[in-house]
């Protein structure tokens, strides 16, 4: 019986949407929509997309060929002024060579005036064109006459000659979507694959129908004398093609909200990626596009601006001979070439996997280049020196994690050297990067190493070694609570890269000032930095300093924190809940060794108990240990996170680890005065 009811409920639930499945008509907004004061599913929403409909289809034009058209209809409810930003629109159009165009922009603002619905039309003259840059234009508009509670809607059609490129179907925004309807109609001449986002899977339904495509074309008129006249004749043609239909019908998609410690919020956005995999032109001979990562890599490799570049050697041959002259070991050669490329070609901050059309030769000559130009030069030079180096394709953090095997999935390239112990990764765009210590931008997802004969393999890009900070503090405490002493701090791997990147540009004055600020206002008397540019070694900071007010002096007792001014006071993980993974870029650890010499005439009355806690599955740990010997307090503390990225299911464990670690650090050591010094 129970099962039956469950079944009945099940079918009811699934048939219910059909009952109110009325087509939302453009320009017809209900009073209910206008009267709504807040969004019941998310009362914090300042605005909500009530309805978004997109239809993407193909047209055939006798002269222009295939044209991809996308019709969009969006209806947005604005609950209050903070939502008004969602009534502005910037339609970006690609205009290099063939031009994207937007036509038939129609838009209305609906307001409730007493009991009456009042419509305000967006006038043509209030739509502006902006020439953003060489290849991009945009049409901008913002809706007129907004009030708290307004419902705005617009529709337009974008026509694009770039028919092989269907934009990702975005299914989630900063504000919730109440109803989303997407339909793509793709003629069988084109085979598109699709893939919904992993974190928020969107359901895609598929079907097939037959459709007749009509088109006009003109041919020159034949003149009587057999020549060709200037006149042309119009023809009508049609073709019957099967069409693949893809539909998405989603309801109540929540807002996408940023969280701290996130790699790229777009990785968690609900969307569907459509990629072309084959095209049958009129010749009937199908043209295949990438279908697997193997295909993609192979195709990239075959490009004039990629693999072909690796054969260009004449321009660096002489330099190379000089660099490796006299070097015998592989490692020496690698280091020499790597350092040479770093200083020879500076990065113009352009992330690309392909060289510009002038190739690596010009970048070499000019000393400036994009990522591909620099790192393909590195690969080419390593190879020429007899080292088995190959390019490794990467997608940067900002670029996100691709859903599909497409060449667009990669936007960056580094060098990889395969040996018995694995792969050595090198990126010469970043001055302070070192072997297997890539800049944060490249630490994303997986890389793909391509060998000469086209075979490829995935490569783990994340550093194998801890991003580490190691502090050794040795101070003398006086009765007033002032300390004086030495602090040596070393930074390794990713931490070192970041440190060098941030601090090496500072003058000595600025650096001192920065270090004083960073360390709760210590006053530095002397300082030295070791290994400033020797990237293979940790960078080490030596400080001789003093600092006042390190303890509470109450009565004849001194209360002090074991870590003194290095005490962590705040938990960075304040959020109650977590939706997306916490990303650190690398596994990391911090070690503190503190030695405090206590003032004459005092003895240690009490000290905090030692603590060792760890997260499940050895994901992270915290240890603190305080020992007292005669006039000295020794503290050892270590915090360690053993992974670069933590799933949201471990968030509470992480938060708890930090909570305990921080609470423990607040506990005091009590010194009591026992005699006059």
């Amino acid at each position, binding site marked *: 019986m129970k099962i039956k009811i469950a079944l009945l409920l099940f079918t009811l639930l699934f048939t219910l949407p059909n009952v109110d499945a009325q087509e939302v008509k453009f320009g017809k907004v209900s009073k209910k929509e206008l009267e709504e004061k807040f969004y019941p599913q998310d009362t914090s929403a300042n605005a909500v997309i009530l309805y978004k409909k997109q239809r993407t289809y193909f047209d055939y034009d006798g002269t222009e060929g295939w044209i991809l058209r996308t019709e969009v209809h969006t209806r947005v409810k604005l609950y209050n002024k903070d939502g008004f930003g969602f009534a502005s629109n910037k339609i970006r159009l690609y205009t290099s060579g063939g031009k994207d165009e937007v036509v038939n922009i129609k838009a209305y603002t609906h307001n409730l005036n007493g009991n009456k619905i009042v419509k305000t039309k967006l006038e043509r003259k*209030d739509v502006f064109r*902006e020439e953003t840059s060489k290849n991009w234009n945009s049409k*901008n508009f913002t809706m007129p006459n907004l009030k708290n509670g307004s419902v705005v809607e617009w529709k337009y059609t974008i026509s694009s000659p770039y028919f092989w490129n269907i934009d990702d179907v975005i299914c989630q925004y900063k504000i919730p979507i109440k109803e989303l309807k997407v339909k793509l109609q793709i003629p069988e001449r084109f085979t598109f694959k699709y893939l919904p986002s992993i974190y928020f899977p969107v359901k895609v339904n598929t079907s097939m129908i037959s459709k007749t495509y009509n088109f006009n074309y003109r041919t020159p008129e034949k003149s009587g004398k057999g020549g060709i006249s200037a006149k042309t004749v119009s023809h009508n043609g049609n073709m019957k093609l099967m069409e693949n239909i893809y539909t998405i019908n989603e309801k109540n998609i929540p807002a996408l909200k940023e969280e701290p410690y996130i790699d790229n919020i777009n990785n968690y956005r609900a969307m569907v990626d459509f990629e072309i995999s084959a095209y049958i032109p009129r010749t009937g001979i199908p043209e295949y596009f990438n279908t697997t990562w193997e295909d993609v890599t192979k195709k990239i490799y075959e490009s004039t601006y990629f693999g072909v570049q690796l054969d260009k050697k004449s321009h660096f041959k002489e330099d190379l001979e000089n660099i490796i002259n006299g070097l015998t070991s592989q490692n020496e050669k690698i280091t020499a070439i790597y350092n040479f490329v770093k200083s020879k070609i*500076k990065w113009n901050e352009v992330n690309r996997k392909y060289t510009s059309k002038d190739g690596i030769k010009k970048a070499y000559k000019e000393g400036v280049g994009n990522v591909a130009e620099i790192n393909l030069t590195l690969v080419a030079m390593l190879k020429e020196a007899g080292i088995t180096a190959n390019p490794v394709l990467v997608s940067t953090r900002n670029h996100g994690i691709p859903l599909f095997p497409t060449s667009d999935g990669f936007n960056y390239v580094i060098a990889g050297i395969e040996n018995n112990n694995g792969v050595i990764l090198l990126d010469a765009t970043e001055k302070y990067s070192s072997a297997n210590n890539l800049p944060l931008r490249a630490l994303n997802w997986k890389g793909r190493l391509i060998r000469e004969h086209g075979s490829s393999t995935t490569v783990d890009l994340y550093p194998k070694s801890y991003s580490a900070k190691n502090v050794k503090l040795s101070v003398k405490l006086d009765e007033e609570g002032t300390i004086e002493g030495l602090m040596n701090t070393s930074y390794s791997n990713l931490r070192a890269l970041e440190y060098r990147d941030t601090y090496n540009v500072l003058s000595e004055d600025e650096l001192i000032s920065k270090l004083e600020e960073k360390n709760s206002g210590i006053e530095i008397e002397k300082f030295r930095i070791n290994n400033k540019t020797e990237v293979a070694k940790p960078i080490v900071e030596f400080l001789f300093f003093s600092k006042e007010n390190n303890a509470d002096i*109450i009565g004849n007792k001194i209360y002090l924190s074991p870590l003194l001014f290095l005490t962590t006071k*705040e938990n960075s993980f*304040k959020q109650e809940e977590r939706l997306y993974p916490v990303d650190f870029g690398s596994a990391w650890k911090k070690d503190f060794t503190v030695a405090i010499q206590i003032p004459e005439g005092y003895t240690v009355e009490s000290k905090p108990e030692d603590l060792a806690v760890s997260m499940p599955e050895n994901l992270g740990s915290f240890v603190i240990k305080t020992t007292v010997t005669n006039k000295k307090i020794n503290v050892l503390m270590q915090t360690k996170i053993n992974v670069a990225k933590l799933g949201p299911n471990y968030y509470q464990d992480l938060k708890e680890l930090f909570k305990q670690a921080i609470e423990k650090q*607040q506990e005091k050591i009590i010194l009591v005065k026992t005699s006059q010094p």
Partner: protein
Amino acid sequence: MKKIILSLSSILLSFFSVFSQDLELSVLSIPDSLKENANAIIRLEDTKIDISSSSKMTIHKTMIVTVFNKKGDSDGYITMYYDDHSKIKNYSALIYNSLGVEIKKVKNKEFKDISAANGFSLYEDNRVLYYRHVPQSYPYTIKYEYEINTPNTAFIPKWIPINGFNESTQKSKYTLTYPDDIAINFREYNFDDYCIENNSSENTLSYTLKNAKAIKYENRSPFYLDFEPYVQFAANKFHLAGVDGKAENWTEFGNWMYQNLLKGRDELPEATKVEIKNLINGIDDPIERARLVYDYMQKKTRYISIQIGIGGWKPMLADDVDRLGYGDCKALTNYTQSLLKAADVHSYYTIIYADTKRNINNDLASIQGNHAILMVPSQKDTVWLECTNQKVPFGYLGNFTDDRDVLVVTPEGGKILHTKSYSDTENKQLITGEYSIDINGNISAKAKIESYGVQYDDNYSIADMDPKDKETYYKEFFKNINNLNIEGITVKSDDKTAVFTEDISFNAGNYGVFSGDRMLVRINAFNVNDNVPKRIRNRKLPLEIKYGYLDKDEVIINLPEKFQIEAMANEKTVETKFGTYKISIEKISEQQLKYSRKLLIKHGNYTANDYDDYRKFRKKINQLDNSKIVLVRNKNS
């Protein structure tokens, strides 16, 4: 055979180009004093401005900049602004290495042409042509030149020989030539400490500054144009995108603005006028009328950036704003003025420098400012209306526009007035509250925070945060308390009086820290001030405290049972020229204390030497804000 000859000649060519060395450009010729604190040095800035008629101006610029390090790269960036009315001609750039050897000629296609809009702008007719060099090594030198032809003589570029910080100037020369029928008004600022050559003659103004050292940036210093030299110019007959003008003083200038930019742009639809008439029906006081109209405008409009119209100076028609419900600062100010006119209330369009506190230079009538607000005259205090903010109370100016000279445009001409300035004690924050500590050291607390003056400005936007962001905000506000668990948040903005009130209740574990039988409790739970300025050795620039304020806290503390007070701080007062800090703890009963705290910071200009004392004062405050009381568990419990 031919092939070989060709390649030979190209080798020769490149041979010669390699050796085109300009010793003047070598870094060896830079005096050491100019390298100190400098990320870059202007070797030469030569600006030649030729005004051939009131609507024809040619700006010719030659710049040679040597960049020493990465932070100086931006000093070598080439940025040329233009619009529909102006044209950039003959631009070129060359790069030299440290020896003065030419290493690159920048191609025209390497200059990028983009819209000047950043962020969402509905329309922007200003464009930027720019080039940013990627250096192979440091130092390097960039030499560039360009010419801009423009009819807009209303904007004669200023001469600012030292532009900002950490950049020295070897030579900066400015020459302005103009015809007989035009007079140039000009004002020289901050010349005292510099040796500036003046080579002006008939129909020519010319200045040269040589060997000016770089100024190191130091925090809490005044706005750089308050101490660095510059000259500002204005032609008595000028042109602005299609409109001619003539002005010798603010009266004439204001008149011109009124006649050409504002007049006749205030027509409203009849329906709106009727609506306004109904709205103010029965109210006689013009300020009360203005209050209602302002509220009407705030509900009806919003701010959108639109840079259109003559040089971005003519507001959109009031009629269009009425229809669209949006506009930029000029449009919304003009619209509000039109609405007030319909309500028979006088008001005046006002030009101001918004954000960084900066005056309209009142001794030179010229186009200045970057924002518009509205002034409503009143028998009591003048009322200033910010029309781009749809949330701020009527007549309230925050630190975006307070306390500065502004140009008020009336039909009778322009006038310089000063906007509302708040006294130190008007910028007030009052905290009253109560907290209890239990025997385990857990805290549960209730606090009421009231903010006035510019402190209102710092806080009122909290009201519009969504609940999650509010929670994050208060966890950050009380960051000195860990594991904070918010129980209740009620915030209220009183639009009549501009008072912002926050009622917060929370609890947190382990606020009291145990050491054996003792518990340490930081007495100041709500308002720990950790604003300690960083140490600056040999400070050169004066200290400026831009805003003074007064914080007053009164908090009742309930102590846990079975504990008694072992030690607690005495009353403390710290008196300095920067302000006063005072705390006291009063024992109400064995189990209850009253904590009072008062912090007064006085705004003002202080000397560079005062900085260390100010820092000491701030350190002391931070130390005393962290004072603790020691509780000890009763022996018999």
